[in-house]
């Protein structure tokens, strides 16, 4: 396992700049999740490390070794894609053993058996080991392709939305498994996803990309609690952070154009002096959370219902802000002195 350093990486496709002057260190043993909407440069970054793309400028170092000019095979990286690529004529066991059978590795059969059995157990496919992969469901095939990466011992695992095709229950199970694999084996992982729950729960570090640039890098908690822009703040949090003009809640401060409110920044009550009236437009019951859609004098505001309270559409709540995040007119964070 090892550290990966990207320095000044730029990559364009025709007129589109996919990755722009990207400098990022993936520490040894870290689980780094790249977050950003479609087109932000996440997958391109992953492919640059894999050696599937060549940068126009900049260097890729893997375990302290310059890798920019190396082929994917020379880099000792293991990849898992959203679309599984398995050998259809082989069984699950043969597919999982395949990476270990390389003549270069010369792995003893007993070691192969043990690794395959272990990985199969982790991914809950032990009973499918002797099935042909063509007889598997989509979810099972994806687990086999994750398994095929896990039997190896690469410098870094590169994963591109590996869980997005699985159902919710399996996704939740595999999130915990992948996290344990990273912490127990000390594996270095770079992981691309759209799914903020995956990012929050698995990452040791999150890198937020915007139009090919790395705009913030840090532990999930700091990305969530102290985002440096509206863009970053909008990447994490369910429901999404509310962005309002500060005047909507009676705040005004020089240089502040927007106020960001997560549910924990919103104090609601029915008889609060000095609060701002917000009419309850819609109640959205998602089971584990109940979202309240409020109309605060023409601004839409989404927050969470408080435990044990009942609400009625049309009623008016009294709202105040508690330590909201503040932003300037460009959407950059304005830091408060008391924070």
């Amino acid at each position: 396992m090892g550290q990966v350093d990207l320095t000044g990486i730029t990559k364009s496709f025709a007129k589109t700049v996919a990755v722009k002057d990207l400098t990022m260190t993936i520490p040894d043993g870290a689980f780094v999740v790249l977050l950003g909407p479609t087109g932000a440069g996440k997958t391109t970054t992953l492919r640059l490390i894999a050696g599937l793309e060549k940068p126009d400028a900049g260097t890729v170092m893997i375990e302290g070794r310059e890798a920019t000019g190396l082929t994917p095979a020379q880099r000792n990286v293991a990849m898992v894609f959203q679309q599984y690529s398995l050998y259809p004529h082989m069984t699950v066991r043969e597919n999982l053993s395949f990476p270990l059978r390389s003549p270069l590795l010369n792995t003893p059969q007993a070691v192969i058996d043990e690794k395959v059995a272990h990985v199969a157990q982790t991914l809950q496919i032990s009973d499918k080991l002797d099935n042909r992969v063509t007889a598997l469901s989509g979810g099972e095939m994806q687990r086999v392709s994750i398994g095929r990466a896990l039997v190896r011992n690469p410098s870094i695992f590169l994963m591109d939305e590996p869980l997005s095709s699985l159902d919710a229950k399996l996704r939740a199970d595999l999130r915990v498994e992948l996290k344990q694999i990273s912490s127990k084996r000390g594996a270095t992982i770079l992981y691309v996803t759209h799914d903020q729950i995956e990012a929050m729960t698995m990452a040791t570090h999150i890198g937020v990309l915007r139009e090919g640039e790395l705009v913030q890098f840090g532990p999930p908690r700091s990305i969530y609690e102290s985002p440096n822009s509206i863009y970053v703040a909008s990447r994490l949090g369910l429901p999404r952070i509310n962005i309002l003009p500060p005047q909507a809640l009676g705040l005004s401060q020089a240089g502040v154009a927007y106020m960001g409110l997560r549910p924990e920044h919103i104090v609601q009550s029915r008889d609060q002096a000095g609060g701002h009236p917000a009419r309850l437009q819609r109640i959205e019951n998602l089971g584990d959370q109940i979202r309240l859609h409020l109309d605060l004098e023409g601004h839409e505001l989404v927050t969470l219902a408080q435990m044990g309270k009942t609400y009625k559409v049309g009623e008016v709540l009294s709202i105040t802000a508690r330590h909201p995040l503040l932003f300037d007119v460009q959407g950059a964070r304005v830091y408060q002195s008391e924070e």
Partner: protein
Amino acid sequence: MAEIVVENLHKAFGDFVAVRDSSFTVRSGEFFMLLGPSGCGKTTTLRMIAGLELPTSGRITIDGQEVTDKPAAKRDIAFVFQMFALYPHMNVYQNIAYPLVSQGVPKAQIKQRIEEVTQMLEITPVLRKSVSGLSAGDRQRVALARAIVRRAKAFMMDEPLGALDAEFREHMAQELRRLHDRIKATTVYVTHDQLEAMQMGDKIAVMNNAVVEQLGTPGDIYRKPASLFVAQFIGSPAMNLLPFEGAVVRGDTQVNLVDHCFTVPRQHANHRGPMVLGVRPEHVRLSAEGGLPAEVRAVEYLGTSQMITLASDHGLLRARMDAHVPIKVGDRPGLAFVAETISLFDAHTTRALPSDLNRESETYGTG
């Protein structure tokens, strides 16, 4: 506006039964979700309502009129698919106008109706643009506009947001629901995404293996799952399920799992044999003393809340708690469950046992 009544709808393709004996009513103006995993029969059900597929047996009425064997064109229904098919050689205006032109609606009226609908969907600025240059969101809006402009009796939507990325999908889901609140057209919407169903639906029919497992509001389906399938399919992560062997007697408010006793909603029937106790992650609490012994295996930070994975004698459990509750891997807390939220299931039939939780109306006679 139209009520859709589906009675004993059945569809077989050769030996394969795609939809088995389904009955439900979509009320006028309702946003109705058909939810289930792939292959459960939800799309076939939708296609039968739309008239794109004929049922093997059963009956469909729209607005009081039987339409079971009527072709799609005679049903006055608008369809929105996952891959929003727009005519690439026409501009936005022509795309939206097309269904009206082919119906022979006078030009002046077409213009007025398009103005109305494009304002509602905020696509007026792109009206004269070619559809090939549009963003994904605008393409979706044009497809919706084309469906809405017809003023059909009902809308059928087959995973219309399926191809979008998570962030944009959430945005469009809200937009779609807001639109529904304005035009209040009866909508039947197919999805495999439980969150989407919970978020947008007035009512959800959860389908599995060709049958409707449960029909209800999002809140009811979440709180009172009628079967083990629903308990696992709805909610992320799923409901915790603890299998046990035992007996309950009508009126019981406690069950024993091996050496641990749990308070449960009052039971309405006798049952003996293998059962399953179900509790949602947010109803698992740390108890100050006693409780079910468990060890913390993983803590997942989620911002407002955190997800705790715990190992117990009854398998792995998940608990959702406020993010500020101090807890770490290796801790050995005792667990308590919020009694009035617990469901019991018959392990053989997989159906929920009747109790105060899911039979409130029976208990209190309020219907």
